[in-house]
C-alpha cells in the first residue's frame, strides 16, 4: 500500500488520490481510494447509489476535508487547501442538483463564473458597474450560445427548466477555461431531447480540458469515457477502459449486470 501511495507524479497527471478515506462518524463513505486522472482524459466514475462517488468529488473539490490520505492536483498537494484556492488552480465542478444563483439572471450567473476567475482584488470593486464590462459580457453571450441559452439571458435562473439549469451550469464552468472539470451526473433527470443536447455539449468540450464524470446513464459513459473507475461501498472495485469494465465479472455482478442484460447484448 505504501509503495502505491508514493507513486511518482509525472507531468501528465492532473489529479492523484493517495489512499484517500472519508468517515462520517462510524460510516466509511470513501475507503482507501487510490487513483490517477491524466491530462485530456475523459474519466468516468460509476457505481451504485451510496458508493461514495459524490463524496469523493466533495473531497477533491474541497467541500469536505479528507479523513486520511492526500490529494494532489496539477502537481500541488491540495489536501488542506480551501475550495476557492483549488478553483484558482483550474478545478471546476458541477453538482447533481445544479447549484445556481436563483435570484439572478442567466447573464449574471455566467458573469459571476467569469468574475471568479479574475484576481481576487477585482471581486471587491464596488463602484464600477459590472454591466459595462463589455469583454466579459461578450464572453457571456458566446457561452450562452454554446449552451443554447442565448434567448434566456435576461431571465431569472429560478424560472429555468431543469435541463436549462444543467446547461447553464456546464456553461458556467466551461467559460472559465478550466483544466479539470468534475461533472456530477450531468444527464440526471433530463428528458430524452435534453440528454442529446447534453451529450453533444460534453463531446464538444476541448480535448485539453480533462473531464472526470459521475454518470448513471451507461450509454453516455461508454460513449464518452476513455477510462472508467467503478466504486462500490466506498472502495474502488475496478478500473479500466470501457470494454474491460463491461467484461469485468465483479462489475457485472454488482452494477452492470442489469444494464447489459437490459440492452440485450
Amino acid at each position, binding site marked *: 500500500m505504501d509503495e502505491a501511495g508514493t507513486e511518482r507524479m509525472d507531468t501528465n497527471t492532473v489529479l492523484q488520490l493517495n489512499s484517500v478515506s472519508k468517515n462520517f462518524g462510524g460510516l466509511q463513505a470513501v475507503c482507501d481510494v487510490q487513483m490517477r486522472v491524466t491530462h485530456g482524459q475523459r474519466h468516468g466514475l460509476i457505481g451504485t447509489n451510496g458508493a461514495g462517488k459524490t463524496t469523493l468529488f466533495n473531497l477533491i473539490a474541497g467541500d469536505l476535508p479528507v479523513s486520511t490520505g492526500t490529494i494532489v492536483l496539477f502537481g500541488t498537494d491540495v489536501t488542506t487547501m480551501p475550495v476557492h484556492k483549488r478553483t484558482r488552480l483550474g478545478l471546476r465542478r458541477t453538482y447533481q442538483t445544479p447549484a445556481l444563483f436563483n435570484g439572478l439572471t442567466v447573464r*449574471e450567473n455566467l458573469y459571476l463564473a467569469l468574475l471568479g476567475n479574475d484576481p481576487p482584488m477585482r471581486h471587491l470593486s464596488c*463602484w464600477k458597474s459590472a454591466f459595462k464590462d463589455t469583454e466579459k459580457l461578450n464572453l457571456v453571450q458566446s457561452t450562452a450560445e454554446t449552451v443554447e441559452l442565448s434567448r434566456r439571458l435576461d431571465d431569472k435562473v429560478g424560472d429555468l427548466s431543469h435541463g436549462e439549469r444543467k446547461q447553464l451550469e456546464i456553461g458556467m464552468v466551461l467559460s472559465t477555461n478550466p483544466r479539470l472539470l468534475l461533472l456530477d451526473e450531468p444527464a440526471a433527470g433530463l428528458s430524452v431531447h435534453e440528454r442529446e443536447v447534453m451529450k453533444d455539449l460534453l463531446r464538444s468540450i476541448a480535448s485539453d480540458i480533462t473531464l472526470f464524470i459521475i454518470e448513471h446513464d451507461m450509454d453516455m459513459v461508454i460513449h464518452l469515457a476513455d477510462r472508467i473507475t467503478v466504486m462500490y461501498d466506498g472502495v474502488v472495485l475496478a478500473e479500466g477502459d470501457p470494454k474491460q469494465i463491461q467484461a469485468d465479472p465483479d462489475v457485472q455482478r454488482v452494477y452492470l449486470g442489469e444494464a447489459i442484460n437490459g440492452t440485450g447484448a
Partner: protein
Amino acid sequence: MNAESVSRRSMLLLALLLAAVIPWIVPNFYTFLLTKVLFLSLASASLILLAGYGGMLSLAQVAFYGVSGYIVAYLALRTGVSFLPTVILAILGATITGALFAFIAVRTSGLYFLMMTLALGQIAFFGAFQWARITGGYDGMVGIPAPVVFGQVMASGKAAYYFTLVPVLAGFYWLHRMVRSPFGVALQGIRDGDVRMAALGFNVKVHRFLAIVFSAMIAGAAGVLSTYFYGMMSPQLVSLGAAVTLLFISLLGGIARFEGALIGALVFVLLEDYASVFTARYNTIIGLFFILVVLFFPKGIAEIFRRKKRAVL
C-alpha cells in the same frame, strides 16, 4: 436606451426635484417628519444591503448607529472638536466596530448570524447604559448644538432637512452603484449560494466581511444624522426596540431592494404621526397595518410599484 429606462430616469429626476423643493411647499412640521424619514431610510438601507442583497439578517445596525451617535454627542458636548473631524471620527468608529464584529461574525450564517447581531446590539445597549461617565447613562446626552457647515448653523427645519438630504442621497447613490458593481453582483451570488460561489473562486468570508463593514459605515452615517437631528443621544435609540423598528421599516417597504427603505420609512413615520394623534396605543395600529401589508404584499409595499421583475445587469 429603451422606453422603460427613459421613464425610470424621468421618474427619478422628478423625485429628486421634488426632494429638493418640498420644504418650500409643505408646512414646517412635515419638513421635520421628512428629515426623520431621510435618516431612517438610510439606516434601513444599511440593513437591506446586508439582508436583502447579502442574505445576512441583522439586528446589529443600531449598534453601529449608536457608536457613531455617541461619538458625535461626546465630541460635540465635551470637547472642542469641530464639525468635520467629528463626523469623520464618528463614522470611523462605526466602521471599526463593524470590522471587529464582522471578523467574528463571518464564521456564522443564517440564524446563528442573527443571534450574533442580536448579541452585539445588546452589548451596545447595555454599554450605553452602564458606561455613564461617557454616555450619560439612562439620561443620555442632551443639548447637542446644531452643526456648523461652511459657517452656516444648520438649526432651522429647512437647514436640517438639506443637511440630512445631501448625505442620504450620496449614501443611496453609493449603494445603488455598489449592488451593480462586481462586488454587489457577487454579494447577491453569495446570498443565493455561498458554497457555489467558493467553487467559482470567490473568497466568501472576505466578501461578507466587507459587506458588514460597508453596512456599518452607512448605519454609522445615519447615526450621525439622527444625533444632530434630535440634538441628543440616548440608550433608547440603541435598544432592541429600535433594532426591531428598523427591521419593521425595512420589511414594510420591502427588504429585497433599496426602494423599500424609502417607502418603509415614509409610511412608518407618517403612520406613527397620524396614529399617535388618535390614540396613545398607536403601536397597535402600526402592528395591524403591518399584518395587512404582510398578508397582501409579502414582499413589502415597494412590490406594488414593480410590475415586472428587473435584473441588475
